[in-house]
């Protein structure tokens, strides 16, 4: 993450007629965003090094001949900035028009990825619904039989966010840019399948793509049945390893349909791995235990009611306790259930039997 070791020096500059303060190392965009200025961006991801590719974030800098890209220009003392003059807005509209004209479609299902509607929102903001520009699409989609990542490069606008997130955040360099201009193409080494590259299927490229060119194939399975506006999000922590990445579970009508990383997750700052991103469907898998089971006289497990199962469970402990004493009962808590479960497991043993015959599963 950038901005971590910023030196504490406070300076002043002017944005749209208001005097604002900033600290060393901030870019014009960062200062403006802190002061609620809505500067459009496309190639910008706050977690990545500034790139300056799309030019949409240009602003007028007094004294400079040409507008400057606010995402790559450091703020300096006494700068006078205008973020939204007529000529700047006209320039941005033309740029957007060109970008849009190069794409097969702009309206994509939000299940494609975390910010897959970024381009569409800008289109709406600038009301670019008909165009005189006849663009050539810059990428060609890549057939890739992997189950997670759709590589629909017809929608690629060459912002290189995927390439940069892969290199800077995931540290993998699985994908790169081939050719330039209209023939730009995001590709893996030797133009092959992702699975034969260094890709770990962490999904971070999907979640930073502003057009849905890289998309969550698994989540898209629900695209036909889930209306775009009816996706609920619940913030939680990944069920797998001890890193504790924050995620949002996407649901619709009591069904889990996908995962988004939490960009502000304290342990992961938007990063996930293949398990956290894609391995969520165990929850609603048909193999789940749905009903309590009790072993019958025939030696087999049979479905039963909660009352019966709990009575049987309790009676068994009671019998063993009566017959063999308190040191005959043992509890093993889970490393995956919430802490309340582990706490009650130890309370069950300590408050119930008065022993310390309790452990968790960390020893194996």
């Amino acid at each position, binding site marked *: 993450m950038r901005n971590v070791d910023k030196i504490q020096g406070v300076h002043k500059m002017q944005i749209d007629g208001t005097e604002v303060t900033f600290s060393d190392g901030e870019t014009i965009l960062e200062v403006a965003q802190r002061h609620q200025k809505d500067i459009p961006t496309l190639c910008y991801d706050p977690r990545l090094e500034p790139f300056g590719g799309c030019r949409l974030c240009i602003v007028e800098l007094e004294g400079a001949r040409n507008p400057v890209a606010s995402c790559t220009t450091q703020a300096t003392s006494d700068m006078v900035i205008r973020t939204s003059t007529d000529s700047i807005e006209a320039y941005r509209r033309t740029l957007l028009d060109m970008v849009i004209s190069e794409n097969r479609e702009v309206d994509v299902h939000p299940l494609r990825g975390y910010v897959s509607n970024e381009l569409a929102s800008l289109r709406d903001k600038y009301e670019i619904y008909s165009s005189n520009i006849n663009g050539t699409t810059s990428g060609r989609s890549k057939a890739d039989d992997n189950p997670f990542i759709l590589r629909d490069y017809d929608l690629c606008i060459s912002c290189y966010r995927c390439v940069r997130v892969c290199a800077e955040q995931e540290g993998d360099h699985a994908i790169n840019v081939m050719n330039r201009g209209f023939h730009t193409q995001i590709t893996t080494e030797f133009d092959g399948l992702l699975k034969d590259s260094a890709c770990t299927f962490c999904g971070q490229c999907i979640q930073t793509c502003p057009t849905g060119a890289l998309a969550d194939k698994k989540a898209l399975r629900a695209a036909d049945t889930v209306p775009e506006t009816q996706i609920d999000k619940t913030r939680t922590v990944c069920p*797998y*390893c001890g890193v504790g990445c924050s995620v949002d579970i996407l649901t619709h009508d009591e069904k889990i349909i996908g995962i988004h990383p939490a960009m502000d997750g304290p*342990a992961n700052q938007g990063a996930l791995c293949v398990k956290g991103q894609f*391995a969520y469907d165990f929850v609603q898998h048909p193999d789940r235990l749905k009903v309590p089971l009790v072993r019958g006289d025939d030696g087999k497990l049979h479905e039963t009611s*909660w009352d019966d199962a709990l009575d049987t469970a309790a009676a068994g402990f009671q019998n063993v306790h009566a017959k063999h004493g308190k*040191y005959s009962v*043992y509890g093993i808590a889970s490393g995956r259930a*919430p802490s309340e479960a582990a706490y009650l497991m130890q309370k069950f043993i300590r408050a119930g039997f008065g022993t310390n*015959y*309790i452990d968790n599963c960390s020893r194996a």
Partner: protein
Amino acid sequence: MSNPLVDMQKPDVIFCIGTNMTECHPVAATGLKKAIARGAKLIVADPRRIGLADLSHLYLPLRVGSDTALLLGMAHVIAREGLVDEEFIKHRTTGYDDFFEHIGRWTPEWAETITGVPAKDIETAAIWYGIADKGAIYYTLGITEHICGVENVQSLCNLALMTGHVGREGTGINPMRGQNNIQGAGDSGALPNNYPGFQSVTDPENQQKFKVAYGKEIDLEKGITKVTALELCGDSIHAMLIDGENTLISDPDREHCEHALRSLEHLVVIDIFLTETAELADVVLPAAAWGETDGVCTNTERRVQRMRAAVQPIGQARPDWWIISEIAKRLDFNGFDYDSPKPIFNELCSLSPIYAGLDWDRIDIGVTDEFNNQWPVPNRDHPGTPRLHEGTFVNGKGIFSNVHYRDPAETISEDFPVWLTTGRRLQSYHTRTQTGRAEGIDYFLPEESLEVNPADLEKWKLTDGEWCRMHSARGSIHIKVKATNRSPRGTVFASFSFGDVPVNLLTGSGYDPVTHTAELKVCPVKLEPL
């Protein structure tokens, strides 16, 4: 972990030992990759040429189970070269003089004879770590899953104490925890030696506190570990309540384990799937899964976070806390009248000094400008503790341990001439009850295989892609051979994630006598073609 995850980007020298981090904790590994991109040096010690080794500047391919020897050799060099932090040693530690004496004989040349790592590489590693301004150690089960797990960890502490690489940004001794709430399970007191908050059960004051809280006289004596309990099944242990653990697949020596659970008079398993372990139970209770239940969990950097329900539990499944309380109530145990997880967590906070400043509502809000949700949080005004041991250690001074190297419980012999070591893989998780049921994962990981160095194939008459039989002193299994340079000559690797290739039938030769962690990492085997 002594230090927060963000610190992973900050060391000058990173020493990773016994951690396959790129596969087991991928997001944490990205922090290290950033440090390396910034110019940090990475030292990796691991018997296998794991992915992390490819990123390293110095790779130490030590023989399985020889970690203590390597670390003693490194301590020797740090002392010999005068790279110790004398101020730190003077003010923050005790026992250095004895330790200095102790390591005099454990030269890197000696360590080479045990570990197989060239003495000069051991020297380089020691010098890099010793010279660093910020040196950080990361480890996982590769250090602890040995009969000498405690000595291994103590050896790492020795290195950090000698060099003062602790209690500062970008330093520390950092174990990475394997399951999303394994830290929380320990915090919550699911341990035979500690009440919640790591309060010792042998301290009469703690006992008194919990006697009052629970209205029950509790033993002033440690309980037994799970490992011992499994050994005593049928003898003195006759009933078990197991919450969500596939003991049978994850524990070493599966046959022993299955036998143990079968000999119980009463086994109750709470789980989300009918696991191999649940199939042995007398009562199986369907738990609400992740995504279906509210609660709190703690990550590897002691960060206490909320888990939230996004959907209703499937079928009749119920949250773990409800199930446990219902059994307790039927046994007339006091204090199990809960209507939600909130009062349970708040009760835990009220009894645990490290959680004393926390409660459900605070965890629900999460990190703020004034508050970091990392324990210890001893009171309401405390800002949270991203970094442990700043200024002082909890127990006063850091103690040097005069550890000795010991051979693994079993070493290779004429009958079992090959070292088997086990672990996990990126796309699967533990015993695969979860990842095995996630669509698409099979694309990457259709089946388990035994990783063998290509140069060893001929010697053992094996063929890449063909099946072989692998024996240990405890049993034998069939497994497919995969030739790869990740395995060194004479050592093979398999993960224990697949029920149909039950690698843990073979392992289980011994346990750490103190922590009772199983020696899953080392097992001598014999291989033959099928």
